[in-house]
């Protein structure tokens, strides 16, 4: 019996199929991570919407929030630049890749600067902190969770940038760079939801 089974190893039984190709594991894993992260964001968005207008004290969103149009444009356009960066790397145009990649970091960084400025204004001018009222709690948690993901993304982008400037990122790495780009697109898409919920519906 076991001898029979063992011969499976020596001479594999049927002919191997000629066109056997499976998806790239990095893409599948990133898709899994994105699904998991979406569930986390969903819970925070639900909490935000559930608590709109339920604060017992001020300040209210209508009084203090200003729509961050410029920085939103920065973040959304960084999705375009990272897309072009990944495409250039796949076509082995490393120079364009590095340029676009650095531009992405710059745009993402300026978005973070915008968030920092907004928080500074809310804390020092309006006295709104995470413990002031329900609006403060939900606002800083939701926007903060997103900002945390942008920061994590920026750190990963910077690591790739350092390797790229050292000449270590070539066309062979383009699939991995694509995976990172997927994450960045996700972070941008989440901002569309957060923006709608916080700055449009929540006021």
């Amino acid at each position, binding site marked *: *019996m*076991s*001898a*029979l*089974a*063992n*011969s*499976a*190893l*020596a001479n*594999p*039984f*049927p*002919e*191997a*199929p000629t066109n*056997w190709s*499976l*998806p*790239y*594991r990095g893409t*599948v*894993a990133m898709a*899994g*991570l994105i*699904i*998991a*992260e979406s*569930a*986390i964001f*969903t*819970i*925070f968005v639900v*909490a935000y919407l*559930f*608590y709109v207008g*339920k*604060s*017992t*004290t001020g300040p209210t969103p209508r009084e203090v929030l200003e729509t961050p149009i410029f920085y939103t444009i920065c973040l959304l356009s960084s999705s375009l630049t990272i897309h072009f960066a990944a495409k250039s790397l796949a076509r082995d145009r490393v120079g364009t890749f590095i340029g676009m990649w650095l531009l992405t970091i710059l745009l993402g960084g300026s978005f973070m600067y915008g968030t920092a400025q907004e928080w500074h204004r809310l804390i020092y001018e309006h006295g709104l902190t*995470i*413990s002031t*009222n*329900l609006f403060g*709690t*939900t606002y800083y*948690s939701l926007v903060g*969770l997103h900002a945390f993901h942008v920061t994590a993304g920026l750190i990963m982008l910077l690591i790739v940038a350092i390797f790229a400037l050292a000449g270590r990122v070539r066309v062979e790495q383009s699939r991995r760079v694509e995976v990172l780009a997927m994450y960045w697109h996700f972070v941008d898409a989440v901002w569309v939801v957060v923006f709608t919920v916080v700055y449009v519906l929540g006021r």
Partner: protein
Amino acid sequence: MSSNAITVPGLQIDEKPWVDILHEWVTTVDHKRLGVLYIGYALLFLVVGGIEAIVIRIQLMFPHNDFVSPQVFNRMFTMHGTTMIFFVAMPILFGFANYLVPLMIGARDMAFPRLNAFSFWLSALGGLLLYFSLVGANGLYGAGNAPDVGWWAYAPLTARAFSPGHSSDYWTLSLLSSGFGSIGTAINIIATILCMRCPGMKLSRMPLLVWLNLVMSGMVLITITPLSAAQIMLLVDRYLGGHFFDAQAGGSAVLWMHFFWIFGHPEVYVLIIPCFAFMSEIIPVFSRKPIFGYPVMVAATVCIGFVSMSVWAHHMFTVGMNSYANSFFTITTMAVGVPTGIKIFNWLGTMWGGKIQFKTPMLFSIGFLFQFLIAGLTGIMMACAPFDWQLGSSYFVVAHFHYVIVGGILFALFAAFYYWYPKITGRMMSETLGKWHFWLFLIAFHLTFDLMHIPGLLGMPRRIYTYEPGRGWGTLNLLVSIGAFIQAIAILLFVANLIISYFKGDKAGNDPWDAWTLEWATNSPPPAYNFASIPVVASRRPLWDLKHPEDPDSRYE
């Protein structure tokens, strides 16, 4: 047998000093070793959680008993629930998935071996954090105190005012840590199944165990994460003065309930689906028939995965919801019984007309079928909102979910242990001890959990510290406790069997059960690289094809 001589790592290990062995195990990224680590770690916590259960049962044996103080009693049921769900059931099932999935799809390892190790150690950290609260929860200078807010940790019990010290924080951090570990493993299992299959292993040819673990991992991604999100909110409330669950500032305690049960109910299916997976492998082999209705089994599992996402608020009928919500959750809860029933009929269909061999794994499987059916039926009873209003938060509920978890999940796990132990260690488990274990555990299980329904019907609330004599609960509780002690003895028999068989068991050979899936095609225990050459498959039962070249399954596909 060893025409192609393969070095088995287990044989080399014996010659090394113990520090090297320890170093190898701590730094390993091999899916089989991580699987064994997961299982060993879970068994350790099974004993700890079992001791907590025994303490609870001693306290409830007699009316007006004061074996432990009310405070300790609260800590015991909190720690028992948290330990058993997060640090026994989850890691043990991930352990089996880790060990078996790559072998069954003919791969050499998981898609991300280092992520695999990272996830395991995150889960391990979670367990340590939970039990560190025993010494560290009041700060190092004070006496410790374990979490005592119940495993649901309903608001406002977890607010600073009602839970001073750090016991709730350790509870939160331990669940966050093990939750991230679970997400990492789930992503890894999905990537492994979709990207690492051997040539010819189409989705429609995967063993059902692999299919069901794929569904389970997909569910983990969207069920564990709401819990993580809620834990983050709880930390914001406790550390940064947030108001998520603070009713005085407009927050809502009911929102925590929803978030907890959006995790909590699908979690039951996350735990039971891998057990369905064990059944779908073990029952066909010991009935000597291929699984009945393979495509329907897959469809039913996916269906359970979807429907179970929309049943959570049946845990909240007694909280008070409007009649539309009550009707919706009653209907969805009853609907999830349909695909589950399909599975039970398919397993029965597999056994029907088969040459059933009553080996220990099969005995536990039959026990599973019977008990899981009853557990499902009491579940349907409680899905009716009016019935639940009467019996919610009573011992009837406790009996129901222990029927699922012990009668279903634990029985399936025992079946899996007896079935795959020969593959993992190269030795058979003792059939005699196994039969003793089965019958003793079966009788004690029914003594405990059949009778536990009755005090519930008589009105005994769950989590009660003690009770008055003359309510008619005394004798029943005494019998329930005696059953629990006998179960503990049966578990000790099982542990003894694990240890004795490791040294004295009969040599297993590659394929002791004459089975059909790929893990039996390699050595026992498998070499580090699993397969000397990557296998190629042409049907759902590659080893059948190999053993019966005159009538292979591939001819009928």
